């Protein structure tokens, strides 16, 4: 925020940065090789629903979009009032999943609801330990791992391990205080 905006008390909504979403498929290969973590085929987009007719109309549009694809999508609302648009697909088709998620994001963003986008989440599993999520923060264009082990508990060691696996493949959020938990996210 610029000095003038500070003085005048205006803050502008932050525009989302969707570019780095497509780096995920290649990073997933690394993740599987290094940590035996495979995609579960579940991905979701989290959005803060605004009130009013504008957003309701958009939601209608999303629902139509979702209905076209043979019920692979569904929609849940979490305890914080955020809407998750969930896509469940083939675990081996991560590129398809990412493309679909990007489609949802782009639709929302083009309709002017970019500032309402919270994150995109894609989940991974190694078959034994609990599922790990990779969270994409639109506002920063960065990723971070999230490994919940129970209600309000997360496995920080495992998250740091996943970050080490990813190395330079993904733009990982450098500021650890921004690795905010998404408790109760679908697929985790």
């Amino acid at each position, binding site marked *: 925020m610029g000095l003038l905006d500070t003085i005048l008390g205006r803050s502008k909504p932050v525009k989302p940065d969707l570019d780095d979403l497509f780096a995920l498929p290649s990073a997933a290969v690394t993740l599987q090789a290094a940590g035996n973590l495979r995609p579960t085929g579940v991905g979701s987009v989290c959005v803060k629903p605004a*009130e009013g007719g504008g957003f309701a109309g958009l939601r209608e549009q999303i629902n139509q979009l979702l209905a076209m694809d043979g019920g692979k999508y569904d929609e849940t609302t979490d*305890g914080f009032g955020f809407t998750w648009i969930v896509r469940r697909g083939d675990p081996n088709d991560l590129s398809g999943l990412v493309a679909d998620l990007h489609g949802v994001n782009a639709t929302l963003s083009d309709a002017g609801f970019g*500032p309402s986008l919270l994150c995109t989440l894609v989940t991974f599993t190694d078959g034994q330990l609990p599922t790990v999520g990779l969270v994409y923060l639109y506002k920063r264009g960065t990723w971070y791992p999230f490994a919940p082990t129970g209600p*309000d508990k997360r496995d920080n060691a495992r998250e740091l391990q996943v970050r080490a696996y990813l190395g330079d493949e993904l733009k990982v959020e450098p500021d650890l205080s921004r690795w905010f938990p998404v408790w109760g996210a679908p697929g985790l």
Partner: protein
Amino acid sequence: MATSRNRFRSDPQLVARMGVTMFLIGALYVGVVAALIVSGLNIAFVLVIAAVLLFVQYYFSDKMALYGMGGRIVTPEEAPELHGIVDRLCALSDMPKPRVAIADTDIPNAFATGRNPKHAVVCATTGIMRRLDSQELEGVLSHELSHVAHRDVAVMTFASFLGMAAGLFTRMALYSGFFFGGGDDEDNNNGAAAFFLVLLVSMVVYAISFLLTRTLSRYRELSADRSGALLTGRPSALASALQKVTGDMARIPTRDLRAAEPFNAFFFTPALANGVSISSLFSTHPSLEKRLAQLAKISAELGQPV
């Protein structure tokens, strides 16, 4: 009948008294400074002292406000819901996460303070968390986070410093006129007259800066309402929180209110209910009607189809 109708209305006399009190506190400060100058201290030196005092207030604003309200920093494990809301709002608005505190008091309120977004703290009272649902609490917290994003502590500190400096420079100008323009043969009489005149003029300057600072504060509250509502996309949740909280505020026993007064500047709603014309000039927060009207406008804007 008449008493029951009056019970929940604000007391105009009380509000006026409070306005006068706040004015007098400032006037006292000005008087002290004037006395310091008359006693021969260098104006630059006094200005430096004033600046240092305000800087300390600004630099330690987070600690002072927390201490004053009895707020306690809480970990995500202790307050998962509060942390969850703040986490998400920060991710939405791309700002660093402030520390989160809870004050154990039944006054329904919340405040944010700190010299910059990195050293900010957001505090909610147990009273506000008990009364509001999570959507409303989110609205309140996004209002507070907007204060942090707008750096209101810095702006308001700077504004009050300017007000003070204006008063000091007025005195300086008057003194140089009196002491260098006039003769110094009848210095006793002249000195006393000069002192009172200087006092009078600096009071007027102070009064103007007082009103301006208050106006600025109200404007910034409206800005924070607006940014907060746009961030959550739910102006009506903030509006209903405001209604609940201001309605409740008037019913709180006076002792608690007095304890809360010094921190009004960074509160979500001031600890005293206002609504009388004189108070609208003196108050740090805009009237409830004004805030609700703005939120309703934002709500209508959001309702427009895309």
